[in-house]
């Protein structure tokens, strides 16, 4: 059983890292600031989410598992707020439509 859980952890965390890589590739390749923000918030959120998911089976008790989930939720909220604030700043300085 623990082998299955460990394999789950390895696969999920690796998948999470792939999405962090995707976010970084997007940050470097995408043409403008607003598009890059998409890459950062969405890909990194999923990356962190998968890492948290992968670590859940390794938690010694239920409170540690809930703590990890709480971290993911708070980071998502922070990411959502920060990306909007940066987007508003960008738009004020480079008027779009």
């Amino acid at each position, binding site marked *: 059983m623990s082998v299955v859980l460990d394999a789950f952890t390895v696969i999920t965390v690796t998948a999470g890292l*792939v*999405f962090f890589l*995707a*976010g970084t*590739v*997007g940050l470097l*390749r*995408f*043409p*403008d600031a*607003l*598009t890059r*923000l*998409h*890459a950062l*918030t*969405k*890909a990194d*959120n*999923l*990356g962190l*989410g998968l890492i948290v998911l992968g670590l859940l089976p390794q938690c010694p*008790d239920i*409170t540690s598992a*809930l*703590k990890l989930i*709480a971290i993911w939720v708070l980071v*998502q*909220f922070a*990411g*959502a*707020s920060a*990306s*909007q604030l940066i*987007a*508003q700043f*960008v*738009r004020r300085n480079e008027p*779009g*439509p």
Partner: protein
Amino acid sequence: MGGGAMAVQTRSGAIGAIASAAGLRRFVFYFGFWFILIGVSPINLIVGLPTAAVAVWVSLRLLPPGDRSLSYGALAGLLLRLPWQSLVAGIDIARRAFDPRMPLRTGFVVFPSRLPPGSARDAFCALMSLQPGTLPVGAGEKDDILFHCLDTAQPVAAQLAAEEARFLRILGQEPRNA
């Protein structure tokens, strides 16, 4: 419950506000958050009580409970959708980033929102910034929200309207036919 926000100005009123239905719900919530952080033990229980009380007091001042009760079923549905949406959004980005041709059709979409301005609309914007392909960049004319989209070929406005309808159900409002 609408008077709860006013009552917290005074100290005795603070206890009254925490004792209200909304206050008690939030108390349980922050008390639970405390135990998630620190683990369960008798001494942590004693410290957690005033901690949660202060958190609820601040929370009631910052977000006064509305006169409309939330639909918890719809809220749970939304929370369950969140990881799925996150997956779709992340895969969408990864596909575009890794594709050598980098398929992007970025542009702006003006979305006339039916949500009242304020925290409800802000929360909707926060949720939409986690959705695949959309990023709110600010308010437009009147009730418009301006979205930056990765792919303007998608029916973005229709998707946003569907999401908004779901969000309205959480607020206990049946979406009118717009």
